[in-house]
């Protein structure tokens, strides 16, 4: 690499650099302040994220790959980077009070979130299998630590241990798939892989192995059947704010990688993986929606609901094409808002002395806290996909993409599962609105989580009523 190329590479990765350096600085700042002003570190982290997002916007448009073709900042990467910045900032907003409540207020929490964000942003830009692996590990290592952040809680420790072991296993499976692919194509660059594999007439059996391993590894990251078993336990044990983060951030990035690897690198051999993804999508929808029906713990229920949503999103991957990719991106954007919203409400309600996570404890919430109940109602109906919320349009556009590719039967199966899944959300609405309260709610709504609730609820309604702008955004940003 000559000097120009190095400078160009550094500029293109400026947002990641900023986040990384700032995270290290915040870690030191905490030592200077002798662990006094932890909340301030949280606010500073939000400022850092805002700067990184701004930088991403400013340098967007340089679509030439840098770092020897390993790293690219195309529209697709910009879309996901901004999404990750938004997700992390919202998580920090509703973490600030929550950490105090749980007595785990350490600045490392915010620093680790920044590291995780850095990993997510690298993944959004990665067009090389090696970078993908590096990004995944950076993100995963930070999230392991955050999962076990409630050090005194055995449940949190168990969750972290489970997550580490299973995630390590899946990473090795992924790595094995990558190495097979490298052996076949002689390159780790995704675009080059497509160029090498594309023209081959006969399909190498090894390629099938490679693809199966890749799907296995990535299915774990996005929590698709049959690699979804870890989700309920880890989601339940982790601090709720981290559960919220895990349910959107790493999941969205899993899809970003999936789209890059399969709809770009392995698109020429789509007949191998299309059927597999179809089966996985239907099985994931089924497992998620049906298992969620019988949950009593709200975090476990949301874990299964997130699995069901993964199944839905996978349908967009199956549809493929421009509409398919755009539908996945739009779905992830909308899903992030509604899922973070519902988690923010759970955190706010648990912030009070009430502090329980059983679904029954939301009984009669509307009587004492009509506004909060109303917000939850909006998020829940959005998750169920009922108009005029954003969740409806997300599902609608996935169906459009599916039916455009003649997958009508798949669309019918999907709508049936969406009707089943609706039950789990309206059950919570029922408890909140149709039963008399059994206990006292003591909810202290501080400003930061209020802000998070405000942003997410407005987004869910506005995207639901005026989806045009966001749809265009996703359509502009698709992979080309």
């Amino acid at each position, binding site marked *: 690499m000559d000097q120009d190329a190095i400078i160009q590479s550094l500029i293109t990765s400026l947002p990641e650099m900023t986040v990384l350096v700032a995270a290290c600085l915040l870690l030191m700042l905490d030592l200077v302040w002798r662990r006094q002003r932890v909340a301030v570190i949280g606010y500073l982290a939000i400022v850092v994220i805002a700067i990184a997002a701004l930088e991403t916007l400013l340098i967007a448009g340089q679509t030439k790959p840098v770092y020897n073709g390993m790293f690219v900042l195309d529209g697709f990467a910009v879309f996901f980077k901004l999404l990750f910045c938004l997700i992390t900032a919202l998580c920090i907003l509703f973490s600030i009070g929550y950490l105090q409540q749980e007595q785990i207020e350490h600045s490392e929490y915010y620093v680790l979130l920044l590291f995780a964000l850095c990993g997510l942003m690298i993944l959004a830009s990665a067009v090389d299998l090696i970078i993908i692996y590096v990004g995944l590990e950076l993100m995963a290592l930070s999230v392991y630590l955050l999962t076990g952040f409630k050090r005194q809680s055995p449940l949190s420790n168990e969750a972290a241990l489970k997550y580490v072991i299973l995630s390590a296993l899946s990473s090795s499976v992924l790595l094995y798939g990558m190495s097979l692919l490298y052996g076949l194509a002689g390159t780790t660059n995704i675009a080059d892989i497509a160029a090498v594999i594309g023209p081959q007439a006969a399909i190498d059996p090894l390629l099938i192995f490679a693809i199966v391993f890749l799907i296995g590894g990535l299915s774990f990251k996005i929590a698709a059947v049959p690699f979804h078993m870890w989700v309920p336990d880890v989601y339940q044990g982790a601090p709720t704010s981290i559960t919220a983060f895990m349910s959107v951030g790493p999941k969205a990035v899993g899809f970003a990688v999936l789209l890059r690897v399969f709809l770009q690198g392995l698109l020429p051999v789509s007949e191998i993986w299309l059927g597999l993804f179809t089966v996985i999508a239907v099985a994931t929808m089924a497992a998620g929606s049906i298992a969620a029906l019988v949950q009593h713990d709200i975090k476990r229920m949301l874990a299964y609901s997130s699995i069901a949503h993964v199944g839905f999103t996978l349908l967009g991957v199956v549809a493929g094409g421009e509409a398919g990719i755009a539908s996945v991106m739009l779905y992830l954007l909308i899903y992030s808002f509604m899922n973070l919203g519902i988690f923010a409400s759970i955190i706010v309600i648990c912030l009070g002395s009430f502090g329980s996570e059983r679904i029954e404890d939301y009984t009669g919430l509307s009587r004492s806290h009509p506004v909060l109940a109303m917000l939850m109602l909006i998020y829940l109906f959005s998750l169920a996909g009922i108009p*005029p919320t954003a969740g409806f349009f997300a599902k609608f556009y996935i*169906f*459009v993409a599916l039916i455009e590719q003649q997958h009508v039967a798949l669309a019918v199966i999907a*709508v049936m599962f969406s*009707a089943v899944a609706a039950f789990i959300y*309206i059950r919570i609405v*029922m408890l909140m609105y149709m039963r008399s309260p059994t206990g006292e709610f003591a909810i202290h709504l501080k400003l930061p989580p209020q802000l998070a609730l405000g942003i997410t609820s407005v987004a869910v309604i506005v995207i639901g009523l005026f*989806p045009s702008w966001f749809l265009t955004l996703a359509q502009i940003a698709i992979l080309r």
Partner: protein
Amino acid sequence: MVDSAVNTIGFPVLSLIVLVPLAGALLLLWLKDDLQIKRLALLVTTLDLALTLTLLAHFNPDTHLMQFSEKYQWIPALDIHYALGVDGISVLFVFLSAFLGWICVLASWRAIEQHVKGFMCALLVMQALMLGVFCAMDLFLFSIFWEAMLIPMYLIIGVWGGDNRIYAAFKFFLYTLAGSVLFLVGVIVLYFEGGQSFDIQILMTQKYPFAVQFWVFIAFFIAFAIKVPMFPFHTWLPDAHVQAPTAGSIVLAGVLLKMGAYGFLRFSLPMLPLATHYFATPVVLVSLVAIIYGGYLALAQDDLKKLVAYSSISHMGFVTVGLFALNVAGLKGGILQMFSHGIITGALFLLVGLVYERTHTRLISDYGGLMKVMPIYTTGLAFFTLAAMALPGTGAFIGELLVLVGVFGFSKIVAALAVIGALLSAGYLLSMFKRVALGKVTNQALTNSRDLDAREVVTLLSLALFVLWVGFYPMPFLNIMHASVEHLLQQTQAQVVLISR
């Protein structure tokens, strides 16, 4: 745009009709006092009713084209528009929805005591969405209104309903949702087959292959049949009706059930003519089952609301039988029957609600001799019972007569069997009236019941006015729909004739 931008009123009247209740619901949120909330809700619905009357006054019955059209870009990437418009068929239902919305507020004046604000908000949102369904000229917009309605209705049944309200609310929600999502799939299939447009008028002009029509018809049929409800998709209805508060029952029976039939009229018949002809006989037979089976079930009920609910299934069977007879008399009769059934059943639910407020029982066996205690009430009950039996001089008579004439053209045997339904309705309604109103007062708890007050009498009289108007002079109603029905029939026949040559 199709040359249908006929708007003889200077302002976008349809948008106003849809948005006024919505704005009213938002305004209500700032009020604290229950009485003020009720008054504002009444004001809003009165204003809405006045707007629909203006609409009717300016409506031109000589054309089948969409009138008062509005069309704005909404989601250009998918060619989705915010498009409203009414023709001779939908304008009647716009009026019906606004009218029954007004009745609902009056009916809830004393019946709703808890969370008045929430109830009135849900009711007004519900009204806005119902009006939206009948005005929408874009399939995407239609689906939004159609499906969004689940939220307020779920809450109305579940929060303000009877003892078993939660079960009923779930059943209503899941049944209707299952139908709605299938409808959505059908809509998207039509979108791709019909040149990537959601505009209803453009989709109507397309010719779809029979295979497409076949499957889309099935998807639409399930969605609409659940709403109507047709046998065997009717099981949610008795639960929902019985558990819902009075206003909820009125909305359900008066407007929601009509939406299923309206869906057939607006989408299945003109867009899928080949499949409509293919499926006409099975649909007519299923409707016939509903007429007779619903009537028999009504005979066996001891709960007043259940009786009216099952009679609805039977009467809606007449509607669908008329629509799928596929001739002018059947269609006109079906539409007129929808209109008068909306008013009469609304009134019957209101009457049940009025007496339930006083006695807190709906069991027929708890009543008897009500005539001696509440003479004014019993007069009303007698009038609407006779109206529901389709006595000559009431709206239902004209509707059922036209339907029978239409069905006679379709099949004489079916017509003969449908008459059994009419006989059954006389059976269960008269026996209900006898057990409730005549005889001796057996239940001492009834003796203290207060008779109707002025508000309640006005509510019932306004409903009775339309029953008699349609009964004695149905021409204005038939004239309004005439051009649109003729055009609809042409659309349904044209392609079939083409194929059969």
